[in-house]
């Protein structure tokens, strides 16, 4: 259950529309089964009251939409930002990707988003409705007479289990209480991989990446990937390709993508959420974050606007490329 209710958000949006603060609202709209929620732009009270939803399945990070929408929208856009979304929001501002003046950001607290696959693993397929408003999540399927009561914590998405911050780093207005930066265990999985032998790691990633179908969902959902022209779409870049025609292509794509967002990735986890093949892509990005934290000092992309990312910075006594492996002796 989320702390700020759907009704509160709708009322807020309606009032900001009514007093002319904003001309449209970027929010979530409901789908067929209570969990298939789509980002949508609302411009009037009726559609807000009818379609706006806010529940445990509103995972989509809106920040990226602001790049295109602020260019098109007359007037200000109201955007509701979960704590993790605010980091992406700031990062995009750091990169001058949209005009801050055209956005009215309302921070909303987030209790974590649910992973529908985890829900289905518990309740089975054939979901006809999900009620997230109670203490527990009530999942009704066509195969059972009574809804199954599920602990929201047991179906949290991976990225929410390892939530890095409940603090909003950007907003014009905050609803509910402000949270704190969390000392999460998000690097544990990376550390586990680091502790493996190179052969094990190679097998692990070969297995994961071989599932890649190059649908580009990770890239297209990524709030750091807002390039006007992506190198993978640009025939002149030398890396353009449409298919995972060879195991090299998969690695190339994911290495380059991770490198391009290194220092810019806020670890929002959209890449892994949207991957239809369930590849843990966030681990690549987290690996870069972990390395940069360890080698160049703690840095959280998006924590503040205008900060200088580790890869566009240096000190004269940085460690040597050969030294990054020091202390990682599992396989020396």
């Amino acid at each position, binding site marked *: 259950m989320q702390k700020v209710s759907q009704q509160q958000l709708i009322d807020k949006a309606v009032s900001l529309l009514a007093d002319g603060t904003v001309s449209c609202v970027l929010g979530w709209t409901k789908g067929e089964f209570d969990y298939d929620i789509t980002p949508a732009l609302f411009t009037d009270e009726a559609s807000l009251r009818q379609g706006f939803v806010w529940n445990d399945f509103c995972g989509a990070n809106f920040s990226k939409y602001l790049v295109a929408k602020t260019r098109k929208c007359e007037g200000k856009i109201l955007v509701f930002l979960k704590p993790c979304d605010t980091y992406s929001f700031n990062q995009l501002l750091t990169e001058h990707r949209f005009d801050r003046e055209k956005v009215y950001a309302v921070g909303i607290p987030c209790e974590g988003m649910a992973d529908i696959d985890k829900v289905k693993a518990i309740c089975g397929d054939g979901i006809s409705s999900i009620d997230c408003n109670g203490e527990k999540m009530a999942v009704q399927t066509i195969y059972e007479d009574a809804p199954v009561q599920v602990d929201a914590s047991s179906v949290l998405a991976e990225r929410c289990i390892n939530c890095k911050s409940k603090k909003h780093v950007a907003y014009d207005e905050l609803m509910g209480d402000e949270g704190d930066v969390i000392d999460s265990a998000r690097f544990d999985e990376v550390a586990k991989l680091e502790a493996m032998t190179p052969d094990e790691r190679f097998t692990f990633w070969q297995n994961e990446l071989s599932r890649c179908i190059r649908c580009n*969902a990770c890239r297209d959902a990524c709030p750091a990937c807002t390039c006007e022209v992506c190198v993978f779409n640009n025939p002149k870049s030398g890396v353009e390709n449409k298919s995972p025609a060879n195991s090299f292509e998969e690695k190339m794509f994911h290495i380059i993508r991770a490198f391009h967002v290194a220092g810019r990735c806020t670890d929002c986890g959209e890449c892994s959420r949207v991957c239809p093949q369930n590849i843990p892509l966030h681990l690549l990005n987290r690996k870069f974050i972990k390395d940069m934290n360890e080698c160049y000092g703690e840095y959280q992309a998006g924590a503040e606007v205008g900060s200088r990312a580790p890869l566009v910075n240096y000190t004269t006594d940085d460690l040597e490329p050969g030294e990054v492996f020091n202390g990682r002796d599992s396989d020396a």
Partner: protein
Amino acid sequence: MRKCSLDALQALFAHVNASMALYLPVDGSDGKAVYQKWSEGARWSHALNTVRSPKDFFFPQTEDLMKFKTAGKSIEIVDVRNAAEDFVIFGVRACDVKSFEILDRVFLTDPVDSFYASRREHGTIVSVACTRPSETCFCGTFGIDAASPAGDVSCWKTETELFWQANTPKGEAFLQLIAPLTEECGNEAVQAQQEKTAAVMKKLPLAELKADAFGGGKTKEFFDRPEWSELSQACLGCGTCTFVCPTCQCYDIKDFNTGNGVIRFRCWDSCMYSEFTKMAHGNSRLSQKERFRQRFMHKLVYYPENNDGLFSCVGCGRCLSKCPISMNIVKVMKKLGGE
């Protein structure tokens, strides 16, 4: 009709695999079902369906068409085609079986795609009827009966047994092959199960979805509908829906410079991509709205127009569960179909 015990399936698979490659859904490392070549120990997945459709068997994501070997300024053309061998795909659901018909109409009409045709010729499709459909299923909308799948051989699974029925000469041959491991039987158990499934299908949330509003000849009616803007506004332009779709059949032909020559290959393309059908003059569909519209107009209007009213959607529900922003053909049909 023949049957075998579920316990005997492993032996049966081994038997089939000894004479031709057998592919079936197994649980992959991420816990999701995926088609894999059978090998000792491979278990048939309990999942309803695979994430990727079985269209790969006939229309793989990438396929080399030919090679040019270059040395300095000389070029030699190399045919890379391999002689196809017989294979079986086991466990195909009714929706996916239907998708092959849709692909056939594209690849087997003149000019015939010989790569596709060769695979199709050598492949035997063994379908399995559904018993526990998902909320995302809407095959019924397109007249598909999940309890009576087509294919060269149709199967029904009960608690303990698997029932087999051949529908084509290729299917007969297959039943012949497995005859030593199966026994002749009646169809009572199958019928009972079909009835049960039919009852479940009626309870599905999308059971009432109708495609009647769409079909050939309705281009003008739908093309300029204002709803497209709203429907497409959240679309990220990724290719997930097209790549998990069993009926999407667009591909691009590209040349890959290997350093020693060029491989000409084809690979799936997606009408959702901004470079889709990019030509010398540029792109034909410049906005995501146009690209988004193209996909659904193609499924619901253009394809039926050219194919006797056959929709090129089979209601498998993959795009419903996989779209990163949960926009899909059902939402489009409901919005435009006037529900």
